[in-house]
């Protein structure tokens, strides 16, 4: 689980924050913090699908699955992705 969180965190920091962590916490909402917009969600989904070899369905594109490092890690775990 911690490996998944680290990997997701690295992707978020590199892709949306130009490498500057700025104290991003695992529960911080990407939407509320304003650094993941609609295009960002597509990038995030593409990254998760490629990295973890899964297909994320339209009905799963919800903030409760994708809006924080913790939410993503929990979603991936429910999808059977192992750390």
């Amino acid at each position, binding site marked *: 689980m911690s490996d998944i969180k680290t990997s997701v965190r690295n992707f978020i920091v590199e892709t949306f924050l130009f490498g500057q962590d700025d104290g991003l916490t695992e529960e911080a909402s990407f*939407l509320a913090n*304003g650094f993941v*917009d*609609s*295009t960002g*969600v*597509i*990038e995030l989904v*593409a990254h998760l699908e490629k990295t973890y070899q899964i297909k994320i369905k*339209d009905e799963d*594109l*919800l*903030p409760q699955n*994708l809006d924080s490092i913790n939410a993503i890690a929990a979603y991936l775990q429910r999808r059977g992705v192992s750390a």
Partner: protein
Amino acid sequence: MSTFTRDSLNIDAAGETARIVQALRRQLSQDLKRRGLVIGLSGGIDSTVTAALAVRALGKDKVFGILMPERHSEAESSSLGQKVADSLGITCIEENITGILESLRFYQRYDDAIREVIPTFGRGWISKLVIGSISSGQQYTTFSIVAQAPNGTIIRERLSLNAYLGIVAATNFKQRTRKMLEYYHADRLNYAVAGTPNRLEYDQGFFVKNGDGSADVKPIAHLYKTQVYVLAAHLGVPVEIRERPPTTDTYSMPQGQDEFYFALPHGQMDLCLYGKNHNIPADAVAAAAGLDAATVKRVWEDIDRKRTTTRYLHLSPLLVEKVNEVSTTPNIS
């Protein structure tokens, strides 16, 4: 407090017309020092009302209309645009932009982008970009391509990032090509260029930077679309234009603006935006718009997201340090 209804958006059409006319005269003579206005005519309500206001402000001899169809345009757009020009008595020319778009390899680039998700897409197919529906409860905006094969089969595929960006980047050639031609004619006539966004489009960033977003004046950017229709009736805009459903006229398949960008049809979007801007409770907006309060709240969240996402479209180039000698804003009274 009085009840919030669709009538809450009503305006004094004569008074508003006079205010815009006065502003246009001042802007052209004092701020811009140009002798008239160029307007791209799409046959839609916004460009028509803008042209009619320009004629009231400057006179029909000082307004120059341009029709700019291309291969994917609806034939109706040019015929209605010409009808507008005829009814206003303004000079109007057609600049078909298909050749320019071919030179830019627009059609090839667009098809290539779609083939990333629909490999069989090609000659004889038509297509459009659509977004997920707020009213269906979706909280993230997702983008899909809807394509129709020559045999009538319709395919819908969610877009990958590369395909989405490729489609949008290629399609933006259309708006930028049109704006380039508007400025060509404005330069040779010593005119300014009018932009035609209504408030919904302006607020929500429904325009292409350096494309249809580029203009010297935007006379109806403060008006909700519902109010633009009120002005249209006051200004005697032909009924075919007032009754034409809003269309992007950008993709080869017929496409409403609410399929492509806005969460709801413009009447409901206007009510949601007005309610949000005036701190009207969600249940009152819901009652006026025929929605439930939860949907209104999701639309408000979407409005905020679009404001954030598209803010850069409104910005002038960002400088590291202000150059005090250069003012980028006129005195707006």
